[in-house]
């Protein structure tokens, strides 16, 4: 375990040094990462002048959802970049994954250490800015419990979407054609939960409650942070399921990953 961590730290060092070699393109990437997120949020913020609410929520309240999601997804994308299904699929096809299997270190450590997209910092920083804005305008009541719970919510989402990345990558051991299906969950899912869940049609919300429990990742915790009533009457612990959902899906993803590696070893893809 200690060795795995040591290797991970060194591999990360390599990634970071490599990226900083290309200063111009790195700054451009960082800047455009901020801009992508900013544009999307700006489009929403600008129409708020006219509409003033979305499903009964103010801009500040939606910004809380949006900022929290952006921070989490940004961290996830940075840490789990090696498992980005598109890139991982390519590394399997080009044989780079074989090279990883030929080294005497944990596969997970090595794949995680094979990519660390620093430019995602742009997204994380912008997300933090939006969250700060949300906290300021909503004037929410901070309690110690809320302060302590906030990082756990972020962790929950990082693990959930990290798990989705791993599942998507594992699928590429079988086929590269269906990556798009998992993209609906990762990109569609993150877009979905950056808005209040009660605005969606019932069938859609139910899918993302019972089939994919994404409603507990962001929406319920934010109800708790903003002291808003639960429109769906779930038990009082519902806001605190986020870390659990994250850990559970991550563990399931790891099990699927192990199964996938075994399959890969028996077919060579």
């Amino acid at each position, binding site marked *: 375990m200690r060795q795995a961590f040591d290797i991970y730290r060194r591999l990360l060092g390599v990634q970071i040094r490599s990226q900083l070699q290309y200063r111009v393109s790195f700054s451009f990437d960082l800047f455009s990462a901020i801009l992508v997120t900013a544009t999307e949020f700006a489009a929403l913020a600008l129409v708020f002048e006219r*509409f003033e609410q979305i499903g009964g929520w103010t801009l500040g309240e939606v910004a809380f959802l949006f900022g929290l999601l952006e921070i989490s997804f940004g961290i996830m994308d940075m840490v789990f970049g090696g498992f980005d299904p598109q890139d991982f699929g390519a590394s399997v096809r080009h044989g780079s994954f074989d090279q990883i299997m030929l080294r005497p270190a944990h596969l997970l450590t090595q794949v995680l250490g094979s990519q660390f997209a620093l430019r995602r910092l742009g997204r994380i920083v912008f997300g933090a800015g939006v969250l700060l804005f949300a906290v300021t305008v909503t004037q929410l009541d901070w309690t110690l419990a809320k302060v302590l719970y906030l990082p756990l919510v972020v962790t929950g989402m990082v693990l959930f979407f990290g798990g989705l990345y791993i599942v998507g990558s594992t699928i590429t051991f079988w086929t590269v054609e269906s*990556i798009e299906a998992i993209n609906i969950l990762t990109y569609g899912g993150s877009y979905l939960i950056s808005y209040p869940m009660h605005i969606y049609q019932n069938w859609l919300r139910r899918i993302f409650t019972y089939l994919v429990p994404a409603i507990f990742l962001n929406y319920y915790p934010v109800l708790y942070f903003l002291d808003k009533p639960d429109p769906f009457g779930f038990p009082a612990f519902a806001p605190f399921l986020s870390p659990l959902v994250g850990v559970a899906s991550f563990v399931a993803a790891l099990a699927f990953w192990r199964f996938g590696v075994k399959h890969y070893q028996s077919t060579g893809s």
Partner: protein
Amino acid sequence: MLKLYFEVAKRSFQRTLTYRAAAVAGLATNIFFGLLRVAILLALYGDRQVVEGYTVAGVITYTGLSQAVIAYLSLFGWYDFMYAVHRGDVAADLLKPMNLFSFWLAQDLGRAVASLLLRGVTFMLIYEIFFDLTYPTTIWAWLALATSLLLSWLVSFAWRFLVNTAAFWSPNARGFGRFAFLSVLFFSGFLMPLAFFPAWVQKLASFTPFPYLLNTVVEIYLGIVSGPALVEALLLQAAWALGLIVLVQAVLRFGLRRLVILGG
């Protein structure tokens, strides 16, 4: 000569049609995001029935229309010419007896038409199952729509090609491209109908070609512009298309001269 470009467009059309598996996956994604965008817009509407000419059915149709033309207009970015410059293919193409811009235009036309059928029309048909969409009612409205769609593709292609010529000057032109295509998403009315934005944003957008790339098509489809305003919109679209194409030709000439002098 024209026959050559027709053949190029035909090939590109057929090639695009073969990517059916990708099209199915792309359709699913487009529809999913369409559903979410409808929910968001309806939640913004609340009790409102009409906003700036967009009825509830109209704004739903707007989400469908803008999702349907993503592939047709390559809204999320297009870097093919950039790659061709960096790989050195363009230098080789110069030896062939044809006009480089027309060649790429023909190729993109084939791709665009195939995408419009495979991704666009199919998308609207499926979307119709989920929602009550509105349609243009007169033959003239359909004709205006067709003209506007064609012009929007021209504006889009000219802009995309212009952005791609940056490859002549920089090996890192992709970052610049990402910025350029992001502006399209915002100012074309893809993220939100332009009419919903504050006046100053709309003013800003009107100085760019981007509204003529999507917003005009939407407003013509929904009948928000009609009569003399419609003619004016089409003329402006055509003017932007023409202006951009002239500009691209000039920039391309500079770029190719640079390519020849520096030896690719």
